[in-house]
């Protein structure tokens, strides 16, 4: 399987704060990869770096798609990737649509700006809405965003992201703003659309429950760095990084009774105040002395001193 997207040693700086510090990630065609982490762990920043959405951040390292370097590409060339090869869905379905334009026009926009005729674009938009399980899609094309429910808007946003048949879908917490039933529905739609198109999905979430049921592979981030990456079964069954273990232990389970909620002690490291050495060491139960001084290298499946020692 060939790599569609390769992120190597990516750093993202905003002012003098390093938001992402050495991110590595490989995404193959047709693969569903979940990027997991707490707020501020740099998962969204990583995703937005791929399409270079934030003009104010400084990017360094390498992001290659099909071998082409996206980071240094001129803006005009990158535009050919946005929408056509990379689709993106955001967290807030309320604000993803221009309030003064009918949604049909907006869903069709990726096609229209690439010279597809109005009638053909409209037909495709209707098809996409239908695929997203929206009833009477032809009538919905003329609806304004405020006339649709949150779930419908998010499905329309997915239709917009997929209408130009991209190879990569970046979904930045697309289910966070939805109720549980709609979450399941939207997830299933993304999953099905991805399978049908052999689409690679970079799915950003902080919800481990979503990851377990849908992802092929998982990458866990902490404080702007990847800490563990593996296929979903192995990661859930045998996590090696202490952070991943603590995170999984904190997932509430039915039948364990009241008072069984566990939390990781301390607070998440912010990018501006990243501890020296392994960023997780102040909260880690098994940290040893050198965790506080040396940044652990990412080897094999995790970035932790305690994992790499027995491996040698």
């Amino acid at each position, binding site marked *: 399987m060939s790599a569609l997207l390769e992120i190597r040693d990516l750093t993202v700086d905003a002012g003098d704060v390093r938001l992402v510090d050495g991110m590595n990630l490989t995404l193959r065609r047709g693969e569903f990869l979940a990027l997991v982490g707490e707020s501020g762990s740099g998962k969204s920043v990583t995703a937005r770096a791929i*399409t270079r*959405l934030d003009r104010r951040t400084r990017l360094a390292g390498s992001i290659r798609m099909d071998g082409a370097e996206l980071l240094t590409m001129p803006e005009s060339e990158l535009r050919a990737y946005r929408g056509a090869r990379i*689709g993106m869905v955001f967290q807030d379905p309320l604000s993803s649509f221009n*309030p003064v334009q009918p949604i049909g026009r*907006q869903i069709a926009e990726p096609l229209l*700006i690439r010279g597809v005729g109005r009638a053909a674009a409209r037909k495709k938009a209707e098809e996409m809405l239908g695929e997203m399980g929206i009833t009477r899609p032809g009538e919905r094309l003329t609806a304004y965003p405020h006339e649709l429910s949150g779930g419908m808007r998010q499905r329309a*946003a997915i239709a917009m992201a997929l209408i130009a048949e991209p190879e990569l879908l970046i979904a930045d917490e697309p289910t966070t703003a939805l109720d549980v039933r709609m979450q399941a529905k939207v997830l299933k739609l993304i999953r099905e659309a991805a399978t049908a198109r052999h689409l690679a999905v970079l799915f950003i979430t902080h919800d481990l429950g979503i990851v377990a049921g849908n992802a092929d592979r998982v990458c866990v981030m902490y404080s702007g760095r990847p800490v563990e990456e593996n296929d979903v079964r192995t990661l859930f069954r045998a996590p090696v990084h202490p952070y991943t273990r603590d995170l999984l232990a904190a997932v509430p389970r039915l039948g364990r009774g009241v008072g069984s909620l566990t939390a990781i002690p301390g607070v998440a490291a912010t990018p501006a105040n990243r501890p020296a050495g392994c960023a997780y060491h102040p909260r880690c139960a098994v940290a040893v002395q050198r965790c506080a001084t040396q940044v652990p290298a990412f080897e094999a499946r995790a970035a932790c001193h305690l994992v790499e020692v027995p491996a040698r």
Partner: protein
Amino acid sequence: MTALTSPITRLTRFTRRPARRPWLDHLVLAVIGLLVLAAIFGPLLAPHDPYRSDPSLRLLGPSSQFWLGTDEEGRDVLSRLLVGARPTLLSALVVVLVSTALGLLVASVAALGGRWADEILMRTCDILLSLPGLMLALAVATALGSGLTGAIIALVVAMFPATARLARGTILRTLTTGYVEAAKVMGTSRVTLMLRHVLPNSLDEVLINATLQIGGVTLILSGLSFIGVGAQPPSAEWGAMASTAARYVTVNWPAAILPGLLITISVVAFGLLGDMLQVRRDPTLRKGLR
């Protein structure tokens, strides 16, 4: 240029707003309707030729023939007021339209053009803003020679920086919204992004501001005409009329007072219209009105 924002808004912003009653809105709309009708049909409605002077009819009081009397050259005041609505209000409208369009253009280029374009355009606006508006208008109008066209250009120069600043703010805010971001990741070009997504969603504040400005501009244009830099004497522009008739105010007051009164009414009416639109756009303001 803050002097050009509605005096009414500025006053009421810091004091308790009076309860807005529907009859006030209706009155405002009726007054503006009448002003617009006069501007369009004034020359047809005028009972006499507004420019024909007759020394034997100088400075007459109101009569059945001249309802509002005559001025110092024996011209019918009512006719001149009706005909004067067009140059007075139309030129104010032209000033506001042109300065708003120019302001939007400058703001769009500043917001999209990157750091240097932004710095250069906005600092230029700051320089223009730091000069007192009326002084700047006077200087430009004098340099261009007297006449209404000169005054209009002068006011556009004096007014567009404030609009550009306001528009830049709303445009920058709109640029951070989700749909602009979504359109951007779809590969939309910067110009399309601006025209289709950013400007339509940044317009309402600018348009309300423009409405508020009409009154202020009317006042300043008439002021320029009054002191002799704008419209020149024979023309029936309200400011110029007030200016020439002012000398004879003790002899025949309507010719001097009425143009000024109409200017005042226009200023207040457009100010209130701006307020109305503002409340329409943001219904939460209504709470403060009770």
